[in-house]
Each structure stands twice: as structure tokens, then as C-alpha cells.
């Protein structure tokens, strides 16, 4: 039986794992970057980053003080008769106290902070119903430093692929040293303004060592990564060979008269986690196996 309490407990554990230990795809890319760099400044920064990851995991401490706002992606079985959102909200509230998470969620205008990361439409939950018998919850705990550098453009169809690449390049240039590079770029192409922005963020849920299944898009991802790494912005904006760790693109068909593009900039601390809750209440954390 999956109850609200089961979901609450799963979400607390999911958040604890997500903010204290990064997934292997990103860690491996950071380690590869540390080997590649030759200059002192980026080497020193990457050494600190890797040391910090090690310390955070060993002490089960949030690796970055910015534990983000909690955005969830839920895939649920059709017949699930339980208030998933209530379980998630209570999970976030408990995790804020016990992990602990930084209370980041505030009213957008009064800036009042309730202190528990819960407020109107926050945590934000995206739902999908699927034909599997288990409930899957994915969370992204993304800091504001990188989120603030994200951008949306409504290009004209005549601007085409060239316009899309230019926009991605300009987003990286404008972000510069601010978003804690090396970054992961989530790119959403097509749909509509809201769909492009949503796809850009969802693109970040895919491991960076897994290219898009469409070979043309996969080539674009690889080309962009290679080219952007020649910019020289580097780790923490202090120069070197690593400006991006990965570029993940998702697309949707769009209106014949439009070409929306969104870039969601993700800092090196690209934290995401997934929990699967089975009908018997058992849990699995596919993003955080072992350890």
C-alpha cells in the first residue's frame, strides 16, 4: 500500500540523497575536467569542488548551501487513490528541518519567508499518469545562481538552426562567471513559450552522458559542448578548458510561424534524484544506487 506517509518518508529520503550526493554522470565529467585542465586557477577550483563532494557525501551534508526550490516530476499509476501532493508537501517540510535544507521559498513580492520551503504552488509538482504499477518521483534541487541566468527567446522560423545556436552561445556569454560554471545547459526547442521553458528544464533530468536519441539532435549537443568549451570562461569564470559539462536538448513540434527556444542554465552542482515506490510500499532510488 502506498500511503501519504509512505510518500512523505520517500520524499525526505530522496531530498537527503539528492542534496548530499551527486549522480555519477556529473561527478565523472567533473573528474575528467580536473584531469584535462593545465592552468592553476581551474585546477584549484576543481580540486575544491571534488573535495567538497567527497566531504558532503561522507558527512551526509548538503554539498551546496543553496538547496534550491523543490520542483517535482511525478509519474503515477492510473488507479492510485492517495493525495500525492500532500505527501510531497509534508516531505519537503520535514526534509527542511531534518536534512536540513535552506528555507528558500519566499513570497515573490513581499519576500516574506515562511521558513519551511512551502508556500503557494511551492513545492511545484508536474504530473504524468503512466501504465506502470509503481509511483516515480523525481526532484531537481537547483540553485538560483544558475536559474537566474536562464533565458527564453521567441525566434522567427527564418532564424532557423543558426538562430538557435546563436541564442545558446549568447546565453552562455551573458551568464559568464555567474552561474557557477562549468554548467550543464538544458535546451528546449519548439512547442510554445511555456513548453520550450519546461522542456529546457526537463532536458536537465537526462544524464549528461546520454545523448538525445535523435542522431541529429545528439550531434548538435556534442558540437555545442565542444565549441562552447573553447570560450575560455572556465571553472567559476576563472578560465580554462571547461565551461560546460554537457548540453542536453529536447524538442517539440511547434507552430509553423514560430521558433521558441529556452535555455535552462544549471550550475556544476547538477543535483537530481528519483525514487520509485512500489505497490507493496518498497522503495528504490535508481539515481543513487550503492553508497
Amino acid at each position, binding site marked *: 500500500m502506498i500511503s501519504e506517509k509512505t510518500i512523505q518518508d520517500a520524499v525526505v529520503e530522496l531530498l537527503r540523497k539528492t542534496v548530499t550526493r551527486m549522480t555519477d554522470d556529473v561527478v565523472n565529467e567533473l573528474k575528467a575536467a580536473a584531469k584535462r585542465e593545465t592552468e592553476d586557477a581551474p585546477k584549484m577550483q576543481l580540486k575544491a569542488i571534488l573535495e567538497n563532494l567527497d566531504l558532503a557525501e561522507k558527512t551526509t*551534508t548538503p554539498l551546496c548551501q543553496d538547496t534550491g526550490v523543490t520542483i517535482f516530476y511525478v509519474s503515477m499509476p492510473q488507479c492510485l487513490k492517495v493525495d500525492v501532493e500532500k505527501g510531497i508537501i509534508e516531505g519537503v517540510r520535514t526534509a527542511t528541518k531534518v536534512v536540513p535544507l535552506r528555507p528558500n521559498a519566499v513570497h515573490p513580492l513581499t519576500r516574506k*519567508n515562511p521558513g519551511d520551503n512551502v508556500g503557494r504552488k511551492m513545492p511545484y509538482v508536474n504530473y504524468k499518469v503512466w501504465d506502470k504499477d509503481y509511483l516515480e518521483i523525481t526532484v531537481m534541487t537547483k540553485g538560483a545562481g544558475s536559474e537566474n541566468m536562464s533565458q527564453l527567446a521567441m525566434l522567427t522560423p527564418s532564424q532557423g538552426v543558426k538562430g538557435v545556436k546563436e541564442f545558446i552561445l549568447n546565453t552562455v556569454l551573458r551568464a559568464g562567471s555567474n*552561474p557557477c560554471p562549468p554548467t550543464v545547459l538544458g535546451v528546449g526547442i519548439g512547442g510554445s513559450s511555456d513548453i520550450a521553458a519546461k522542456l529546457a528544464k526537463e532536458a536537465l533530468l537526462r544524464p549528461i552522458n546520454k545523448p538525445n536519441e535523435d542522431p541529429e539532435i545528439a550531434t548538435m549537443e556534442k558540437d555545442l559542448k565542444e565549441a562552447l568549451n573553447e570560450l575560455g570562461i572556465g571553472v567559476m569564470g*576563472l578560465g580554462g578548458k571547461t565551461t560546460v559539462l554537457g548540453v542536453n536538448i529536447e524538442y517539440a513540434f511547434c507552430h509553423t510561424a514560430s521558433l521558441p527556444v529556452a535555455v535552462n542554465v544549471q550550475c556544476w552542482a547538477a543535483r537530481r534524484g528519483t525514487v520509485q515506490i512500489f505497490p507493496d510500499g518498497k522503495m528504490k532510488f535508481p539515481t543513487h544506487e550503492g553508497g
Partner: protein
Amino acid sequence: MKMQVRLKTPISEQDIRKLNAGDIVYLDGIVYTGRDEVHIHALEKAEHGDKPPVDFNRSVLYHCGPIMKKQGEAWTLVAAGPTTSSRMNSLEPKFIETFHPAAIIGKGGMSQPTIDAMSKHGAVYLAITGGAAVLAAKGVKKVHGVHWFELGMPEAIWVMETENFGPLIVAIDSHGKSLFADIDAIVKKNVDKVKKKLNIA
């Protein structure tokens, strides 16, 4: 020649003027956290002839919103990496001019008006690795207290005692040099090459 120095807060203008961009600094003593809201509120106070609750003169201000945990009556630090300094670009020159801090710790660098204010008032910008919050917390010995907690945990002024806090890179010195500006110049040169590679030149 790059040097490595250990400095105790508060720091005199003379000691700050000795630092050059690229030098490595480790800190001891009191460091105050302060970001968007602290800048806004401290400057508002000053405008009305009031003082903020701590003395920023020759002190170190850390652009940081930490995770703190209350155990009994005392606060303990969990994680304390830097926040993006450029958000304070519009407020920092006035903050430096009004309160005369000796150093600002952050990430990502700051814009020309802040570089100018640092030259004029003898201050430096010290860069610390963004996201490396557990490592940074290792250099904090004790949390002495908090002011303006009503602004929320990330936005309050936390009074932290540091010990061998670092390594911090002098990224903007008090002579007008900025490592970030140097990198910007390199990036500008590289853009054409990158555009050619992407077939968008």
C-alpha cells in the same frame, strides 16, 4: 610574484593595499554574511542616520546565505558557500563608500563601479569556489549570532568566527585589477573562433 597570506579581521587599509590580483588569502576572525536584503536595509538605515547592528568598518563581508541549524539556543553552521555577487552590483559601490569594508568574499566577480569603489576605499574582492559549501564551512569555527533573522535564514547577517578560512583568491585588488575582466578579454577574443566552429560566423 603571487603570494599567500593569512590575515586577521578587521584588516587595515595598509594590509589590503599590499594584495595583488591572483594572491591567495586565508582568513581568521569575524566575518559577516550579507547579501541582497542586508545591502538594502543597511543602506536604508544609513540614509536615515541610523547604524546597522554590526560595524562593517575594515571588516569582511561574505556574500553568503548559509544553512544553519539551531541546537538549543546556539546556532551551528551546516553549509556556507558563496552566492552570486553580481546581484549586488548596483548596491555595492554605495555600501563600500558608506561602511568601508576591507574585503568582500563572493563568487563570479563584480562590475566596474565596484572595482572603482574598491580602489578608492582600499578594499578587495576575494573569490571562493561556488557550491563548495561543506569545504567552506570547515573554516568556520563558531557562529556568534545572528541579526535581522526576520529577513529569513539566507538573507540575515550571520556573525561567524573563521579560522584559516580559504583558500580565497584575490580576484579584484585595490589597484583596479580584476581577474574576471582579464578572462572576459580572453573570451571576447575566442568568440569568433567558436562561432566559426558552430557555423554561425
